[in-house]
């Protein structure tokens, strides 16, 4: 199940393709505004055999009642054995609803595919790694994008055809979106992420992190605490129930490193922590820890990095 947003293919779909290709022959289903363009892109992706697309209006905005009905009918018609989607608000919404039509469990946020029926996933905020075997006839998975390298955009030669539309249910209606318009790098894909916590003290101080991120083309993330306090919008939240990131470099600024936050970033290759509390738990996961006042250290770091660039 591919995802389109704002008329465009969501890049994490390519991780789902890579994951699905490990299991068998891949058909991509894409529905909603921009599906036709997305379908053309998907047909060229390495590992995609076929693409089914529909731009019928009732699939817009990812309404789960409509998307799951289309998914169920498509799976039945095509005798698919596995349904894979990249973990996202969209897939979490639709996949479990569709799975019940097959009396199937869902294996959420899979981190590794051992075989067509055996998967590894995180539980307890990543503190217990579970290997599970599914006995369902049709298996539904969402896969963690940071665990599956995106399939190449070229090399595929899939066919594109129209999906058979399901009848609209009209049970829920979209009212509006309030989405941050940003040209900043996308959080779950950026090679460098700079995140801030309560140590930043207020919304305005987050500019310090924007300034640090800019020369490195880094994305900026946040802890739950600062989102709750209104310093940052919800889409910046990294953690157990927010976004999961695994960049090459994660710079944790003024955040203590609560279990729930660490769950969202502990797969980062290198972790740097800047905090004035030497006992902050973040130092236990950091590769490099700087005990310092962030209001002193961050501008210094920004200046030196900026100079180097």
């Amino acid at each position, binding site marked *: 199940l591919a995802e389109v*947003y*704002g008329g465009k293919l969501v890049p994490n779909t390519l991780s789902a393709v890579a994951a699905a290709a490990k299991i068998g022959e891949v058909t991509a289903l894409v529905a909603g505004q921009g599906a036709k363009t997305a379908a053309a892109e998907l047909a060229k992706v390495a590992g995609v055999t076929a693409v089914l697309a529909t731009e019928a209006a009732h699939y817009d905005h990812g309404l*789960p*009642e409509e998307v799951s009905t289309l998914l169920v009918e498509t799976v039945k018609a095509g005798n698919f054995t596995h349904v894979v989607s990249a973990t*996202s*608000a*969209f897939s*979490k919404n639709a*996949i*479990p609803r*569709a*799975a*019940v039509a097959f*009396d*199937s*469990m*869902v294996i*959420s946020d899979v981190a590794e595919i051992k075989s067509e029926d*055996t998967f590894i996933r*995180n*539980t*307890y*905020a990543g*503190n*217990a*790694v*579970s*290997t*599970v*075997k*599914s*006995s369902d006839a049709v298996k539904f998975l969402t896969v963690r994008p940071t665990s599956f390298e995106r399939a190449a955009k070229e090399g595929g030669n899939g066919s594109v055809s129209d999906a058979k539309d399901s009848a609209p249910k009209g*049970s*829920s209606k*979209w*009212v509006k*979106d*309030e*989405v*941050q318009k940003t040209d900043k790098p996308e959080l779950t894909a950026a090679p460098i992420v700079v995140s801030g916590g309560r140590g930043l003290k207020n919304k305005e101080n987050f500019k310090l992190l924007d300034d640090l991120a800019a020369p490195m083309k880094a994305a900026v993330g946040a802890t*739950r605490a600062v989102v709750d306090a209104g310093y940052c919008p*919800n889409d910046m939240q990294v953690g*157990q*129930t927010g976004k999961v990131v695994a960049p090459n*470099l994660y710079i944790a600024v003024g955040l203590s490193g609560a279990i*729930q936050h660490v769950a969202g970033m502990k797969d980062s290759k*290198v972790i*740097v922590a800047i905090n004035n509390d030497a006992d902050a738990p973040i*130092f*236990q*996961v950091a*590769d*490099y*820890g*700087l*005990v310092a006042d962030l209001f002193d*250290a961050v501008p210094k*770091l920004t200046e*030196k*990095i900026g100079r180097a660039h």
Partner: protein
Amino acid sequence: QRRDMGILFVNIPVKMRVLVPVKRVIDYAVKVRVKPDKKGVDLTNVKMSMNPFCEIAVEQAVRLKESGHATEVIAVSIGPKTCQETIRTALAMGADRGIHVYTEMRTDQELQPLAVAKLIKAIAEKEQPELLLVGKQAIDDDCNQTAQMIAGLMNWPQATFASKVTVHEDKKGVDVMREVDGGMQTVTFKLPGVISCDLRLNEPRYATLPNIMKARKKTIEQVTPEDLKVDVSPRLEVLSVEEPPARASGAKVGSVDELLTQLKNAKII
């Protein structure tokens, strides 16, 4: 003779029964330890609490009662006898009565969202709620599936990851503002429906001592999966549960310059 015809307006209250599943899980602050036999997380003598997202769901239900929308709040929990403590907490927060579905299955592994959804559906068919408020995910299995599965089984509309719920004037529908990957989305549907509750929907109240005492008088009905005619056998067999790979321990640096040197030497920047 003139007869005055009085027109009697009868205010028939719009019923809104709210069903709230509540899960007993490891307390969010506990450091999790995996058993050496790799069969699961060690839960012996570990502090257990109501799942934080379920607390938010209970709080929202109680607020709906306080605002004159909900007419009854029913809390349901599935698991061993100790689940009754979790139901009592919901009752102390303001739920009216509880239902305990008794099972000795491990609720962090063997009892899975599909089975839970079927149990909740069976209870909903009996209790006929207008609204199901469900925590978005349990912090033990981190599945984030149950609300969506209940909605699918019931063929009801759903709104997941709610950060704001507004009941319509006529009390027959809701607007739900939900957290999505790029920000917020608002959807609307007519009841009955299912809403999964996210972090910022509300801040749950602490149960006061007078309310804890009052809760003792509220009823908790006990049933079993067999009574509800639901097959709760797991679909996912847990082959092993292990600690995550340990990160090599890091080092402290003394200054910004030292940090940069180290990062450059390691070719990270």
